[in-house]
């Protein structure tokens, strides 16, 4: 009896020990390529930080459980300056030299488009964040997903909102040589026209321009009912400030996704008062979910600065990847992980308020959709005022028709 017990105990111990050996703790490198310097760093750096923060949270919670193994994540981040060649080089380096199979980040459309053009041929999965150019998810690339909805998805909702406000003559001032800003305005105009409105002028500025008074002076002469500003945060902040300085007293709408801190570097809160930002329902403290509030607090504590509203796109990518790896049960088979991404429901940890399509986070094109929201600057903060009309399923069907 004793012998049998000993034998049984030994067998059990061996099995347990064997099991422990099999369930090794390993490290999985994931890559980030983003604009960490230059003009687009206002979007890229917070994204990179967000991935780093999510990884630390995941590791602290026990890592990623893939089959028998547990993986701790390690981030390798490279700066692409939002430049297509730099982004290509960075991704080549991640894949070829560092052996990375999962690449996150991608704040900006030009650089993202360059990588998207070859990623289908690589043994890797690409998770796009803030880059809003529509064509990124129209090519049916199986190993690419994107958390941010395309710009025209939001532009159409914004056009409807502004038309409902009763504005008929809208002047546009934007970085219109940037493709996704132009597509936002096109979709905006289409909806405005349906309500009998019109865009009276389309004035453009460069991303490095800071004095927009000539365009604003022209706009003032046209006496529009409202102005629409689309562009990066800093030039947009100058426009809002200069519009006040020039005495333009009409509602100001925008599409910028800048945080309070980013705007207050250029304009005063008084100059910003009443400005609308019509964008995906990104992180704004006053409208955030529990996850959003926690994200804001943790990010601020870790990096000493508030997160930009669009940065959770990258944070959410990281959690989406974690769940996809666990669902696929592999870190080697990138096709299986890419397929798992397309099949997954919305993870509980995400910050943005995604609208599922057929119960899934990403549609067949690899595109996720958030709701769109109207935010207004009130007393020094972006305040969520209302949802904008957003039909994710209809847009997803439309996206599938584009070649």
């Amino acid at each position, binding site marked *: 009896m004793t012998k049998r017990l000993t034998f049984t105990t030994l067998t059990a111990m061996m099995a347990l020990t064997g099991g422990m050996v099999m369930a090794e703790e390993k490290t999985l490198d994931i890559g980030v390529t983003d604009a960490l310097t230059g003009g687009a760093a206002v979007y890229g750096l917070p994204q990179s930080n967000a991935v780093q923060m999510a990884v630390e949270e995941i590791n602290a919670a026990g890592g990623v459980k893939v089959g028998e193994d547990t993986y701790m994540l390690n981030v390798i981040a490279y700066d692409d300056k939002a430049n297509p060649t730099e982004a290509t080089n960075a991704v080549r380096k991640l894949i070829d030299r560092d052996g990375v199979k999962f690449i996150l980040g991608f704040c900006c459309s030009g650089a993202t488009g360059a990588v998207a053009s070859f990623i289908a041929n690589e043994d890797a999965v690409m998770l796009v964040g803030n880059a809003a150019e529509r064509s990124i998810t129209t090519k049916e690339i199986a190993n690419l997903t994107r958390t941010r909805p395309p710009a025209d998805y939001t532009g159409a909702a914004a056009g409807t909102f502004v038309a409902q406000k009763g504005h008929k003559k809208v002047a546009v001032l934007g970085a219109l*040589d940037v493709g996704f800003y132009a597509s936002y305005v096109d979709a905006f105009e289409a909806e405005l026209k349906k309500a009998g409105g019109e865009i009276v002028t389309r004035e453009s500025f460069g991303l490095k321009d800071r004095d927009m008074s000539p365009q604003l002076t022209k706009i003032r002469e046209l006496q529009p009912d409202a102005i629409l500003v689309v562009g990066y945060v800093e030039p947009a902040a100058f426009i809002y400030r200069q519009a006040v300085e020039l005495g333009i007293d009409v509602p100001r709408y925008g599409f910028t996704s800048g945080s309070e801190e980013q705007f207050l570097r250029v304009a005063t809160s008084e100059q910003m008062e009443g400005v609308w930002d019509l964008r995906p329902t990104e992180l704004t403290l006053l409208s955030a979910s529990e996850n959003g509030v926690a994200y804001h607090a943790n990010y601020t504590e870790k990096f000493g600065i508030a997160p930009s509203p669009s940065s959770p796109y990258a944070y959410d990518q990281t959690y989406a990847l974690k769940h996809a790896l666990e669902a696929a049960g592999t870190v080697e088979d990138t096709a299986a992980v890419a397929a798992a991404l397309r099949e997954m429901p919305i993870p509980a940890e995400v910050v943005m308020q995604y609208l599922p399509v057929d119960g899934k986070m990403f549609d067949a094109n690899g595109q996720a959709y958030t709701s769109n929201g109207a935010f207004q600057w009130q007393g020094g903060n972006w305040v969520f005022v209302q949802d904008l009309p957003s039909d994710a399923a209809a847009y997803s069907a439309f996206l599938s028709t584009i070649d």
Partner: protein
Amino acid sequence: MKLRVSHILYAAALVGFILLPQLITVKYYLHLSVLALVWVIAAQGQNLIQGYTGYVSIVQAGFMGIGAYSTTLMGLHFGLPVWLTILLAPFVTALFALFAGYPSLRVKGHYFAIVTLAFNLVIFIVLMHATDLTQGEAGISGIPKPGREGGWLDFANREVYYYFVLIIAVAMTALAALIVRSRIGQTLIAIRQNETLVGAIGIAAWKYKLFAFVTSAMYAGLAGALYAHYQSFINPEIFGLAQSLDAILAVIIGGSGTILGPVIGAFVVVFLPEYLRFADSFRLILYGLLLVLATIFMPRGIVGVVGQLWARMAGKATR
């Protein structure tokens, strides 16, 4: 023909380039080598106008853009085969260069540099705003590779593309050497040394300058076409002012007015920023600092420094 040390060095370098893909274990470096070879072609063109003729042109990346977009658009809209569009791209670029060069070359020195800089800006703005044609900032993706799918040579394979670009880079370098050694090349050097004197002896210097400018643009157009079909994606950002300055730097760092200089310089401007990635956000500051120091302390470029060292060593040996 007498066999000189330089000939042995050229042969050794060529053997090194041929063996490179076999020596490289990480394909990322092969990718950078392809880009560097593309830049060798662009820099050889830049060297003709800047190094040999003495006119600093700040439009080389703009001309690369014209080459890249012309090969892409001819393929997309007219269904021309990739080989043909690559061949035609330098000639399309030459037309633009002829148009730009005629007025630009009426001015000299800094004024010429500023006029060409303005042309680069114009090219960039047109590429950005002619969205119906160029798709603006979003860029054009899916640009096909040369050859047929499943054909004898798979140009999607980076090694194959490397050898393809290497052959063209060697041919264009040899062509540049031939031009420099010809009567035309000697006239270009004479213009660099003393343009007034060249005019005084009855040579129409403007014709030679225009030749150098247009040829330089053709080199850039070819480089742009090769870049487009390699990356399969182009947008205007790639052909901006910063890239034109890279072409100038490649010539200065490598050795202005030498045949080997642009080859070395092109590899430096492609590889150095990549090697400096360890410095994170200080990378570009470090890159800029290194280039400033190199320009100050090596005005004749790497080829000049090596040449001086070689001469000293040879001098000691003969003493």
